[in-house]
């Protein structure tokens, strides 16, 4: 199968890239291993400030419909075996899809956060719980403990409550090499304070005043109620951690320790639950970008490809969009996808002039500015580092070319 553009990943970024390129007249094939397009957007459900409910399943559906109306071929249920230059995607049915341009929009995966007992059925990643609850409409459990405090875990805890689950609490992971600073109450409070417009208003009202100042934050931790503070139907427990998960063949209980303000455990008690959701944070998935210039930028969530202002990687005609470039929300992923698709359409000669590309680039910036949820607190710094490294790469390349012309 041959097309102008082959997109890997039918999440918000991939679909948006496909729509932008196809609406400009390019032939586009999208490949995805899930049964339905939408990626992690399918399970998203939260209230946006001012605009009402963000229902990921509906947005996915309309994006996919728009793509199909523009002539995009979406190949679902297809696993990618390999991506090779100029650009050929090998599929698990023995076929391949070739495109002059490729867009890698493989998104993110969750960092594992091992806790003794975490392999028991009933323990799952927070994102799995989200999709089950909001998309498949199946409660992951009746009594649920959530481990890890971040925008995703707080959002999903709320969604679980809305779906009728009893969320017994949100806890810190216990101290370990895996948990790192995620087990540190001080770091968590600082992190929570940085999430400006996110839904956990109760906490922010309570902590916002204190958390911005280090000395006061210390005070806040000392006086943080050991019973936790009520938050949207559950309890936020900055002074409790989950030490282990137990049960016979399935989750039946968790052992919860009261911790001091440095995260050191004290007394423990057992709480009955039938589900534990672990949130270890997201990292960009780089399985298909190994030939690109990659760099680890912790502010973006892990290792990411360097990319041009138009989303092209160091491999010519290979573009990226969405969480593969760093952990951000779906709206930003969509804007990045539109930028990549528009830039490709322009390179294909389907769009004249630079205006459309410039507008799409501006749309990414404004999406970032107006974003209600910031997953990575230092995302702006991370993007700046990535941009600087790209410019450095470009400079080195142009110097190399100059050298060659003198030779």
């Amino acid at each position, binding site marked *: 199968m041959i097309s102008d553009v082959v997109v890997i990943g039918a999440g918000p970024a991939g679909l948006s890239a496909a729509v932008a390129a196809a609406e400009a007249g390019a032939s586009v094939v999208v490949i995805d291993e899930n049964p339905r397009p939408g990626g992690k957007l399918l399970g998203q459900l939260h209230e946006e400030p001012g605009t009402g409910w963000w229902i990921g399943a509906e947005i996915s559906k309309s994006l996919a419909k728009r793509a199909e109306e523009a002539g995009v071929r979406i190949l679902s249920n297809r696993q990618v075996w390999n991506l090779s230059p100029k650009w050929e995607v090998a599929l698990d049915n023995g076929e391949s899809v070739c495109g002059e341009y490729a867009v890698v929009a493989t998104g993110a995966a*969750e960092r594992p956060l091992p806790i003794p007992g975490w392999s028991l*059925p009933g323990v799952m990643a927070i994102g799995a719980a989200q999709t089950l609850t909001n998309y498949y409409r199946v*409660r992951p459990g009746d009594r649920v403990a959530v481990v890890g405090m971040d925008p995703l875990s707080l959002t999903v805890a709320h969604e679980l409550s809305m779906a009728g689950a009893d969320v017994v609490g949100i806890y810190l992971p216990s101290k370990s090499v895996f948990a790192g600073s995620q087990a540190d109450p001080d770091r968590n409070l600082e992190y929570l304070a940085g999430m400006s417009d996110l839904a956990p208003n109760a906490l922010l009202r309570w902590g916002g005043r204190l958390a911005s100042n280090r000395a006061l934050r210390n005070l806040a931790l000392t006086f943080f109620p050991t019973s936790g503070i009520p938050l949207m139907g559950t309890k936020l427990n900055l002074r409790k951690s989950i030490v282990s998960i137990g049960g016979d063949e*399935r989750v039946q209980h968790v052992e919860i320790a009261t911790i001091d303000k440095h995260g050191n455990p004290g007394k423990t008690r057992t709480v009955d639950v039938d589900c534990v959701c672990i949130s270890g944070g997201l990292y960009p998935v780089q399985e298909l970008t190994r030939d690109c210039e990659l760099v680890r930028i912790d502010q973006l969530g892990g290792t990411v490809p360097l990319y041009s202002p138009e989303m092209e990687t160091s491999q010519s005609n290979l573009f990226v969009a969405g969480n593969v470039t760093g952990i951000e929300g779906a709206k930003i992923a969509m804007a990045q996808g539109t930028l990549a698709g528009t830039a490709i359409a322009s390179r294909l000669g389907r769009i004249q002039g630079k205006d459309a590309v410039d507008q799409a680039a501006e749309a990414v910036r404004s999406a970032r500015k107006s974003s209600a949820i910031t997953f990575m607190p230092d995302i702006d710094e991370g993007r700046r580092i990535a941009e600087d490294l790209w410019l450095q790469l470009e400079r080195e390349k142009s110097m190399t070319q100059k050298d060659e012309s003198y030779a």
Partner: protein
Amino acid sequence: MKRISEHPVLGPLEEEEIGFEFDGQSYRGIKGDSIAAALLANGVRTLRYSNRDGEPRGIYCGIGHCYECRMTVNGVQSVRACITQACDGDVLESQGENRREGSNDF
């Protein structure tokens, strides 16, 4: 039992039912379910048994990444239950050579 039929934000649930079999037992699901979701809605958490110790395993990542939910679907081995749609008439089997005795799920 775990199906969310009432939801304060989302609309009514799709009603079209499907029937399938898992390890010899019959279950009902809803059209559009992933295999993993359909089984969980029936209270089935254990999807396979680990290769090393025969320990039970269930849904973990939900995005096809961890391979903990793979099972045999209509004779095809190692299909990821979390990203595969359940279809009417499916015959599903858990995998795991060292499956522990007496581990009967729900």
